[in-house]
């Protein structure tokens, strides 16, 4: 067994949330450069240039890429041989609070009824997953709500089939229009049950941008969805063109014989994510 102190988890999480807010990862930067290079219209191409300048400024000048530093979603994979010397939920939230405070990030978490800001950006939304081994892997996905608000879920009848899944995803993204800050990444969760589909859609956003699903039929769905969404015409920021979507990531899980859950989680172009292995 390997013991990890909660303080170490907090410190690492704090560093990760600050870095995530300021430094975009190569996968999203590469996807934006690719979109810029294939964009034919002046305005959306210039805006993509500006987004790359923005990313560079954020990193160099240590300022958030986007003012919506989000609700912090934290994925924690706990090795079976790991012992935490304390409460891990408290440790994660302490790290989020420390990072948002020290990094001058925006506190965007409030009571849903009174709308009173909690003032610490906590509680984070934490997903724990037991895995083999003696390591702890933490991934932070601070996600803005322009994109999160455009996400949707459907419990389709199985007769809808692949065509029904694709129609629902395309409708959701096209109806979102300019609101989620396109070019977007679209996470799709297929199967499982109600919450499993949503979790899969969110989790798919952690995949390196543009890497196809290993299962061939699923990769086919991803490719068709990407083409169909980009036919919609919204384009970069809704300013037109064929770069509405950078990538579609789909994840799958067996479902009930009576059920075909589909969840669509939209991610903005400011796709911020960082991970560390402790």
């Amino acid at each position, binding site marked *: 067994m390997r013991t990890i102190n909660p303080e170490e988890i907090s410190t690492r999480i704090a560093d990760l949330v600050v870095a995530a807010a300021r430094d975009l990862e190569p996968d999203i930067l590469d996807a934006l450069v690719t979109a810029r290079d294939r964009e034919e219209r002046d305005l959306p191409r210039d805006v993509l240039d*500006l987004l790359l300048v923005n990313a560079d400024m954020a990193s160099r000048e240590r300022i958030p890429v986007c003012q919506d530093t989000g609700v912090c979603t934290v994925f924690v994979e706990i090795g079976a041989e790991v012992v935490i010397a304390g409460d891990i939920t408290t440790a994660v939230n302490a790290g989020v609070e420390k990072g948002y405070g020290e990094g001058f990030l925006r506190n965007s978490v409030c009571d849903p009824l009174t709308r009173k800001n909690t003032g610490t950006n906590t509680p984070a939304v934490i997903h724990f997953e037991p895995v083999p081994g003696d390591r702890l892997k933490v991934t932070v996905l601070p996600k803005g709500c322009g994109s999160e608000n455009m996400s949707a879920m459907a419990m389709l009848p199985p007769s809808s089939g692949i065509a029904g899944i694709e129609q629902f995803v395309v409708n959701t993204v096209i109806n979102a229009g300019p609101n989620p800050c396109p070019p977007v990444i679209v996470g799709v969760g297929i199967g499982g049950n109600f919450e499993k589909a949503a979790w899969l859609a969110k989790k798919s956003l952690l995949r390196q941008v543009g890497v196809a699903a290993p299962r061939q039929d699923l990769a086919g769905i991803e490719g068709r969805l990407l083409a169909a969404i980009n036919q919609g015409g919204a384009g970069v920021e809704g300013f037109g063109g064929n770069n509405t979507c950078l990538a579609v990531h789909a994840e799958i899980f067996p479902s009930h014989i009576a059920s075909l859950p589909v969840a669509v989680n939209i991610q903005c172009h400011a796709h911020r994510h960082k991970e560390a292995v402790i």
Partner: protein
Amino acid sequence: MSFLKVSPGFTARMRSLSLPLVDRDLEELRAGDLVSLSGVMYTGRDQTHRRLVELIERGKNLPVDLAGHLLYYVGPTPAPPGAVIGAAGPTTSYRMDSYTPALLALGLRVTMGKGARSATVRAEMVRHRAVYLASIGGAGAFLSRCIKKAELIAFKDAGPEAMFRFEVEGFPAVVINDLGGNDFYQMQTEGRELGSRL
């Protein structure tokens, strides 16, 4: 690296305008125009809107006279020591739709955020001769540097949702809804068959 420059064509196509905009500016703007704004603007997002409209409903004065002005939908990150403001890009505008007609009735002439407005707001904007602009969503760091002065005006307890007065220089935006009722977003998607590739 070669890509780390705003395209010179972008800057060249921008039309420079001083805030607050005058009638002639508003009349000349067309959906799709790229503008560069300099001067004074006020800010507010969800909580500021809720409180402004509550004040109007109770017959009270607003913290600032918005007549003729631009209201920018933003909730900035806190300013680090020595900085004017933190990241300060636009937030999604539809959440303000239910409050916007009351502010247009007081003479607000320009709103700026990102994303589409409701049919009601679009109609009210035409009626009150107001325009809607979108700035660049997700460019909070870049836009922060266009803000030369930031002063807290009201609702400090709302934290990031407080109301500010900004003095900006070269703040970029695109005209979405002009006085003629055109909608730049709709112009991009019209005629495209929904999911035609499926």
